[in-house]
């Protein structure tokens, strides 16, 4: 297998005394769509700026498309496209002019694809950028990036200003990139988006990678939620290892179960006589809450059995 499109190991970055990145690891295999999750201020945009060679890492190693993003910025940038989280455009240029300009600076864009994207994103390219809303500025950057023939797309919270219809358009565009074998790094805090699109997920917090792997890998670490209607008294289930947050209301019961204990818990459940059963895989929402919600969990007195 080819070397990864992005391979960052142990990256440190300081702004004065403030440590923005603290030994961050991020690997994205070629042809994959990688989700990059973290709350505001966790270092997502800083990481991306290091990957783009806009910031210089203070420690660790960063490889991007087999190059050094700081030293080989220009050659690497011909092969990638970037959409910033907060798109700033030239107020006196129209959206169409900005798209063409960015395309020319990268080394050309596909005109037919550009027209197609303008139509799909319903963007009016004749308006001056100062009249665009945040969402429309984001569309300008998205059209400029997606109309290019880049190998790697680095998208920093690209849908934060888009409405749900446009988010759906964006989702289809990213899936098309995947069909064409392109690599995508998608930073987001919209979990459903990452869940829908991404092969792998890296979760960071305070400049540190706290979890990374395929969605499947991460789900093994977590719990499924179960809702059931049973004939017997379900309260005894609460005593089983691996069962959390059990709530019983007459014959109805809901609880979470650690995936490694599903087997024993299900046996106990069927022994009670199951009338109906709904089980959901853990959502990314829950993964996320486990990493960012522990302060809340501690406050709720739930800290002890969270792990």
């Amino acid at each position, binding site marked *: 297998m080819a070397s990864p499109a992005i391979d960052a190991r142990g990256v440190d970055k300081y702004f004065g005394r403030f440590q923005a990145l603290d030994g961050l690891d991020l690997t994205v295999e070629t042809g994959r769509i990688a989700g990059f999750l973290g709350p505001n201020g966790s270092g997502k945009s800083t990481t991306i700026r290091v990957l783009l060679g806009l*910031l210089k890492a203070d420690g660790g190693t960063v490889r991007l498309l087999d190059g050094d993003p700081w030293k080989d910025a220009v050659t690497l940038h011909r092969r990638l496209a970037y959409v910033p989280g907060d798109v700033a455009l030239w107020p006196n240029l129209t959206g169409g002019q900005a798209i063409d300009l960015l395309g020319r600076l*990268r080394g050309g864009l596909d005109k037919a694809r550009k027209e197609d994207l303008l139509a799909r994103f319903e963007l009016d390219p004749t308006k001056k950028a100062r009249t665009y809303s945040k969402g429309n500025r984001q569309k300008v950057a998205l059209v400029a990036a997606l109309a290019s023939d880049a190998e790697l797309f680095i998208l920093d919270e690209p849908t934060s200003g888009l409405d749900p219809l446009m988010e759906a358009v964006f989702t289809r565009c990213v899936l098309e990139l995947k069909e064409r074998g392109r690599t995508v790094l998608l930073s987001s805090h919209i979990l459903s988006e990452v869940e829908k699109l991404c092969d792998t997920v890296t979760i960071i917090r305070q400049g540190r990678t706290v979890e990374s792997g395929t969605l499947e890998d991460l789900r093994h670490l977590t719990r499924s939620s179960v809702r059931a209607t049973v004939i017997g008294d379900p309260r005894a289930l609460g005593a089983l290892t691996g069962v959390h947050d059990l709530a019983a209301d007459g014959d109805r019961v809901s609880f979470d179960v650690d995936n490694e204990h599903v087997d024993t818990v299900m046996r106990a459940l069927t022994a009670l006589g199951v009338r109906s059963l709904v089980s959901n895989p853990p959502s990314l929402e829950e993964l996320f809450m486990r990493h960012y919600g522990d302060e809340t969990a501690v406050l709720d007195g739930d800290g002890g059995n969270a792990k």
Partner: protein
Amino acid sequence: MSALTGTGTLTRFILRRDRVRLSVWTLSLVGVTAMTVPTLDETFSTPAQRQARAALMETPTGVVFGGPGYGLDDYTLGPMMVNEMTMSLLIALAVMSILHVIRHTRAEEESGRAELLRAGVLGSGAQMTAALVTIASINLLIGGLTGAVMAGYGLETVDSLVYGLGLGLAGLTFGAITAVCAQLTEHGRAASGLAFLAVGVLFMARVVGDLAEEGGNALSWASPFAWVQQTRIFDDPRWWPMALYPLAIALLFGVAYALARRRDLGAGLIPGRPGPAEAGPLLNGVLALHLRQQRGAIIAWSVAVFLFAISFGTLATEVEGMLEQNPDIVALLGDASDDATAGFLSVMSGYVIMAAGAYAALSVLRARSEETAGRAEVVLATAVGRIRWYGAALAVSVLSATLIVVLGGLGIGIGAFAVTDDSSWIGTMLEAVLSQLPMALAFGALSALVVGVAPRLTSLVWVWLGYSVFATMLGALLGMPDWALELSAFGILPRPPLDDFDVVPVAIASAVVVAAFAAALAGFRRRDLTTA
């Protein structure tokens, strides 16, 4: 709820928000008057000196910058003040009023803050009224203090105070013009551009009218710039032209309110026009992008410097007579000299270099604001390297400053040629400004170095530029010691045609400038990009 509900609260809020900004305007404008009155008094102390100065005010250039020239026959301190200072003060008040009114009306709407406020308990006319109440107060305060300062120096009290009131009302008239402009376009910058254009046209109307006929014709009377001087204050006072201000103000406010009632919040009466859907073939690189961003500013600076240079050049012959009458002028011009014309023109060439230096610095700082706004990030994430992006920005600074310098030298030469019939002045002045070009570029280079290496120290550039301008213009007059004068950027190089051209210092200065540009590029290549 009336249309004015909440005006009082909003007025206090504006004064709170702009307390520093408005204090600086007030103190600097009143301070300029307070410093100018005694300076004029001391510089032109004998009747002969004063009449020589009055003769200067009768020249076309004197009319452009001075006014219709009332009181020149007996040019005492009062008429002198009115002729020498009025246009500068009115222009400053116009700039202040335009910026203030746009800032608190159209710019608020454009940013969406007005929407937030209007959703609360606030009348539809409250924001404009609060903007106008505050700009009226500040104009009248500045006018009143100016009048009081003049009276304090012993000028006739009534005339001084009426003059101050006239200044304040003129400033408010410009504010009222701006209030109308703010209704027309959707964008603050377009609205203030429109207001500046309107004020510029009114200024030119007064100039053309006053040049066409002594004391001004109908065209002058159409301009608020004329009315305060048309009262013939300190000369042969007549007060009725003052009544034109309240009339114009009432009319303009009426129009502004009527227009405001007819439109939606955020909408303009002139709808924004769509632009091209595709970039033209010229917009194909970073140099084109930087030039595009500064196109308007470069044209405006070049034209302004060229026109001012021509008008300074036409003074070439007047100076000799003036110097014979008043040796103190030599101090004002910064240099004792046997050849008055050459001395005067070399000082004027220094002004051109100052303007070009200021633009060279501004131009580089535009690159810095591209960076902090996040637009540099978008470009540098494409196949554009640091050196190419920053190098193009510095090239624009160098090219535009050079253009301004050449036009300035050409302008002085043409002006001097027009009054002396000696065409060699054009070549002489071009050589003069070009030999000082490194000093104009030095400010671009210094800005470049600061932005490239230590962007936080940007304001230092303005400290040195401000000091240099101050020392050059007033240093000799104030009797500053030589070493202090030599700290000025404009004191470093010899200044032809008065001084002889000397290749050594010019070569050294050029080498320093080139080295600073190179160090700036190297620094920018190495540092992190900062985004606010």
